[in-house]
């Protein structure tokens, strides 16, 4: 049973003509791979719809409270955001290379790729932590002593003010930045949660890959995890412009 996977392992009866990782109810290994791959895609569909609810909320409130969203987004550091995008894209690349290594049965390369992906995932979360702690310091976490100070009096926040010279928002609009920050935390938080789950599975996979589990021809698990990881990457590819780049040209609005 050394070739079992987390998705497909069970009462593998001794079929002489089949590889040991083939489940008894599949006729061929191709059918099994096709089925698990398709199942993974269907699972990703549910993920699309799950994030879909948040994107809908984002679109509505962004259009209602555009000034609040613009100034809220000015609180995010574009440098960190860009860095994180690059980190995540790189991790996607290393993951893709990992899939290739598994397909080519290169155990060393696979382990290396998985370790790199794992590390880059942690780097991403590290940067996210820095960004979150900044929000906590400025009381920009919705629901927890939320402060509109930076928006009704931008000059009190010189770092951001010197870059964008935002005009003060009226109090009612300033209060709506809370909605922006809620969506920021909900969307990036949900994304980070997916990253954490992914990193945990990666850790498990590194352990298994070192034992040679994925480099004997049965790559479905690595492939399917790759799909998950790339999906999480795609979510971020959309979150980055939507949350960070709403309106970044100084003195323009």
């Amino acid at each position, binding site marked *: 049973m050394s070739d079992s996977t987390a998705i497909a392992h069970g009462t593998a009866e001794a079929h002489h003509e089949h*590889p*040991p990782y083939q489940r008894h109810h*599949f*006729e*061929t*290994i*191709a*059918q099994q*791979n*096709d089925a698990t*791959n*398709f199942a993974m*895609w*269907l699972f990703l*569909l549910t993920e*699309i*719809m799950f994030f*879909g*609810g948040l*994107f*809908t909320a984002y*679109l*509505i409130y962004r*259009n*209602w409270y555009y000034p609040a969203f613009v100034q809220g987004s000015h609180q995010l550091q*574009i440098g960190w955001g*860009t860095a994180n*995008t*690059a980190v995540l*894209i*790189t991790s*996607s*690349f290393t993951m*893709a*290379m990992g899939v*290739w290594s598994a*397909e*080519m*049965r290169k155990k060393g390369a696979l382990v290396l790729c998985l370790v790199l992906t794992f590390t880059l995932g942690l780097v991403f979360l590290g940067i996210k932590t820095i960004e979150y702690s900044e929000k906590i310091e400025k009381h920009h976490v919705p629901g927890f002593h939320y402060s509109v100070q930076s928006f009704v009096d931008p000059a009190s926040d010189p770092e951001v003010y010197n870059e964008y010279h935002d005009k003060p928002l009226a109090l009612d609009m300033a209060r709506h930045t809370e909605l922006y920050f809620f969506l920021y935390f909900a969307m990036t938080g949900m994304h980070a949660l997916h990253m954490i789950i992914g990193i945990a599975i990666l850790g498990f996979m590194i352990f298994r890959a070192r034992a040679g589990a994925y480099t*004997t*021809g049965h*790559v479905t698990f690595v*492939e399917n995890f*790759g*799909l998950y990881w*790339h*999906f999480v*990457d*795609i979510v971020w*590819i*959309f979150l*980055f*412009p*939507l949350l960070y*780049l*709403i*309106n*970044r*040209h100084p003195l*323009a609005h």
Partner: protein
Amino acid sequence: MAHDIPHEQHFHDPANVTNPEHAEHHIVLPLEYSFVFGTLLLCTALTVFAATRDLGVFNPIVALAIACFKGVIVILFFMHVKYQSNLIKMTVGAGFFTFLVLITMTLSDYISRAWGLW
């Protein structure tokens, strides 16, 4: 185990003899991955740059267009959809279609509300 060369086995297709839902496994080469990776980094730089220019209403459109492009190439190459069966292509399409239904039908209400701020 007599499977030395990966994915060379040609089993008969169990579901149907000529099942269009099954595509042969295609291995994407590292060079292709590298190109995609480079394009993605380039696009990231481009989208950040575009955000610093004042393009009026086109700012979000450009940003989203670049994001869509990035998403599509990740799906096509990193996620191998380009080499997958029509079934997988349709599945991906169905997901984004339903996503768009959720958004556009909801917005149809918000846009046409009299009290709306659109």
